[in-house]
C-alpha cells in the first residue's frame, strides 16, 4: 500500500497546478469582467488578421 504515498503526492501536485492556474487566471484579470468575453466569442474569423492584433483577443485564442 506504500504506493499511496506516491499517488497522493501526484494527485496533490496536479491539484496544485490547477490552483496555480486559477491564481494566474484571477491575477490576469479574467474574473474582473465576466460579461464582455462572452461577447467576444461571437467575433468570427472572417478577418483573421484582427485576431492577433489585440492583446485580450489573444488570450481568448489560447
Amino acid at each position: 500500500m506504500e504506493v499511496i504515498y506516491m499517488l497522493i503526492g501526484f494527485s496533490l501536485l496536479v491539484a496544485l497546478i490547477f490552483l496555480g492556474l486559477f491564481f494566474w487566471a484571477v491575477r490576469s484579470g479574467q474574473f474582473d469582467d465576466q460579461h464582455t468575453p462572452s461577447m467576444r466569442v461571437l467575433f468570427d474569423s472572417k478577418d483573421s488578421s484582427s485576431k492577433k492584433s489585440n492583446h485580450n483577443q489573444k488570450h481568448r485564442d489560447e
Partner: protein
Amino acid sequence: MKTNTVISPDICFHCGEDCVIDTVRFDEKNFCCQGCKSAYQILDESDLCGYYDLESNPGINLKNVKHRARFDYLEDEEVINRISDYQDDSRISVTLNIPNIHCTSCVWLLENLQKLEPGVLQSEVNFLKKELSVLIDSNNTSLRNVVEQLVTIGYEPEIRLEKLDSKTEKSHQNRSLWLKMGVAGFAFGNIMLFSFPDYLDTTGSGLGGDFHLFFGALNIILALPVLIYSSSDYLKSAFAALSQRGVNLDVPISIGIVALFTRSVYEIVTLTGTGYMDSFTGLIFFLLIGKLVQQKTFHRLSFNRDYRSYLPIAVNVLNEHGEEYSVSLDKLTPDKQIRLRNQELVPCDSTLLSDEAFMDYSFITGESEPVRVKKGDQIFAGGRLIGNAALFKTEEKVTNSYLTKLWNHEAFQNNDKELKLTTFADKISPYFTVAVLGIAFFSGLYWLQTAGVEPALSVFTAVLIIACPCALALSTPFTLGSALNLLSLNGLFVKNHLLIENLSKATSIVFDKTGTLTESEAAEVTLFGDELSSQEEIWVKSACKNSIHPLSRKISFYLKDVIARGSVNEVNKPRVNLPSMATGSIQGDRFVEQFSSSTSTIDAPRDDRAILKNFEEQPGKGIYAEIEGALICLGSRSFVAGQSGMKLNEIPETNFKGSTVHLSINGVYRGFFGIKAGLRNGISELLQNIKEKFSLYLLSGDNEAQRSDFTHYFGSKDSLLFNKKPEEKLEFITQLQENGDQVIMVGDGLNDAGALKKSDFGIALADDISSFAPACDAILEGDSLKNLGVFIKFSNQSMNIIIASFVLSLLYNTIGLGFAVTGNLSPLVAAILMPLSSISVMIFTFLTTRYFARKGGLAIWK
C-alpha cells in the same frame, strides 16, 4: 431580427433609422444622413465592415449631432496627466466612459480601434461598465486624435469634471476574494479526500498508523493557508471589534474557527483523533461564497455622483480676438466670456451677453418649462441652454456657484449611510456569543466534575465548533443578495444589499413631480380647433416626424394614435371644439427647442407616411414643410404668422396651461395643439394602492399649475408642496425624520440630490439607467415606478425570510449542541452537519425569495 443581407430600401444601413428626409446613397447602400455615411466610409476604408455583420444596423445615429464638441483641452499636458490612468514618455493609458456602447458590434469595433487609429496600441471594452480602456502611443498620435476619431464613428466619450479629480478605480478588490476562495476550495476538496479513509475506519487499523499520521500531517499543511490567508478577514474583523469592546458576528465565527483548528491540530498531533479539518475548510469556503455574493454590485451604475459628474470637463472660452479655445472647468475664472451651444450646460453662475436665450432648469430646480432669459440676466450653473448658441460672462468660479453650494450641506459631509447600517445578525451576535460561551463553560464544567479534564476540554471545544454561526452569517447575504438580484430584474437597482432593510421599514414616501410622477414623453396632446381630415393628419404627422423637437415628436405620436384609431372606426375620432381664447398670456409663444435623448421612434405602418419635398426647422421657433403640394407650418404664434403670411393678431392667444403649438395648412390657421406633461404610466394606480399604507408627499420645485391634478391622490393639503428649493426639500425630509418617519424619497434631478441623500432610502428615477442620476441609494427604471408598492412589500418579506433562515440555522445549531454537550460530536457528524446547515440555508433563501417575488407579481427570470 432582420439579417443584414436584406437591406430594406429606406432603412439606414448604419444606424437602422428610417431615411426620411433625403436618402444618401453610397456604395449601393442607403444612409439617413451624411454623418452615418461618413462613419460607414471610415469603417469601410479601414476594412472594418465586420461591424455590420455582427448585428444589423448597429451604428449610432449621427443626424442629431449639430456640431462637434471641442476637445482642445485634451492637448493640455496637465489635463492628460489628470485623466489618464498611467502615463510615461511614449504611452498613455486612459479609461473612457462611452454611453453609446450597446451591442456586440460596438465591442468588436472598439477593440479593433488600432485599425482606425494606428497610434492605439491596445483597446479593451468592459461592456457592463460601458468603458473603453485604451493604451496610446503618444509619439504616433494624441489623446485628442483618438477621442475625435471615436466621435466621428459615433462613440463620443463622456468626459466629465469628476474625471479630473479621480483616477479610475480598478476593481481589483474582488480579486483577493476570488483567490481566498480558491485556496479554501482547494484545501476543502483535498482534505475531504484525505479524511475519507478515517471515516470508513475509525479505529485506524485498516490502513495502518502511518497513513493516519500521513493524512493528518497533510491535512494540517493544507489547512494552514486557509487559516492564515483565507480566513484572515474574519479574524481581523473580530479582533478589531473586540479591541473596540464590541461584538459582531465575526467574533463567534472566529471563536469557532480557532477552536476548530486548534482542536484538530491537537487531535492529529496526539494521535487521539482525525480532527475536523474538512469541516474547518468547508466552513471558510462557504463563508467566502457568501461574501462574494455580498460584494456583487452593479458596476455600470454609479450611485455616488455629484455635480462634478454632471458638468462637462471643459468649456469654450473666447479670448480678446473672439477666438474660441477650451479651458478645463477648474481653471475657469470669473469675468471670462464663454460660448455655449444648444444642449450645453452653464458651468458656473453667469450673466447672459446675447440678447435672448432659453434655459432649461428642469434638472436643477424642477421647473418643467424652459425659462426665457434676456440680456444681462443672471443664469445659474447647471442650466441647459436650449436653442441657438449664446454668449455668457462668468460671474463665479465653478466651486462657488449656486449648484455647488448644495453640496456643502452637512448631509453631504457625513455620508455613507450604509456604515451606520447594522444587520440583524450583528445585532443578535453579542447575545449569541454569550450564550455559546455560557453553554460551552457549563457543559465543560459538568464534564470536568464527572469525567475529568480531557473529556471536559473536548466537550468545551466541540460546543464552540458546532455553534459556529456559519449558517447565520450566510443567511443575510444570501437572502438580500437574492432579493437584490430579483429587484434588479424588475428595474430597481439597489446600491448595497443592506439598504434593502431601510426600504422595508419605510413609513412615508416623498415624490418629486417633474420627471418623476410626470413624464414628458407621456404627454397629453389635445388639438384645439377644427378637426383635420385624415389626409391632413398624415401630412402633419410626417412633418412632425422629421423634427427632433420633443413637442413635434409628441404631436407625431399623438397623430399616429389618432390615425390608427381613425382607420378602425371613423366615428370614434375625438372631436374637440375651439375653446374660448384669452388674451395677454405669454404661454402661446412657448415653442422651444429641446432635444431629448436620441431614442429612435419605432415606426408605424408605412402607408401613413407622406413624402416631404421641402423641410425647414428653425430651432426654438417651429417647422415648415412642403408635403404633396400642401404647406404645413407648425410652431409659435409669431413663427406661424410670419411663415404663412398672416398678421399676428389673426392667431389667437391662448390660456392653455402647458405648451402650445400652432398649426396652419396652406396659409390657413387651423388651431393649436395643447401639450401637457402627463402622468407616467401606472402612476395613478400606484398612488391609489399605497396611499392607505404610507403617508405620501409631493415635493416639487415647479409652480402650482398642476396642483389640482394631484389633490385627489395626496389627501391633505399639507402633503402637496410646490416651489421648493433644493435646500427646502432637504429640510422637509429632515423634519419628517425628526417626527420619527422612515422616508423614501423618489426624485430624478439634481434639485432632489439633497433630499435623496438625506432620506433613508433615496431612489433616483432614470429612463435610461446609465445616464446621469444624482447620488442615491437605488436607481429605478422609469417604467418600473408603478411597482414601487410591490418592491416595498417584497423587501419586507425578505426581512422575514432572514429571520426564518435564522431560526432554521439555530435549529441546526441546537441539534449539533445536543451532540456536543453529550460528548458525541464525532468529526463525521461535524463534517455532515456543518455543510448541510449552510447549504440548506442557501437553498431555503433562494427558493423563498423567489416564491414571494412571484407571488407579488415580480419577474423572477430574465
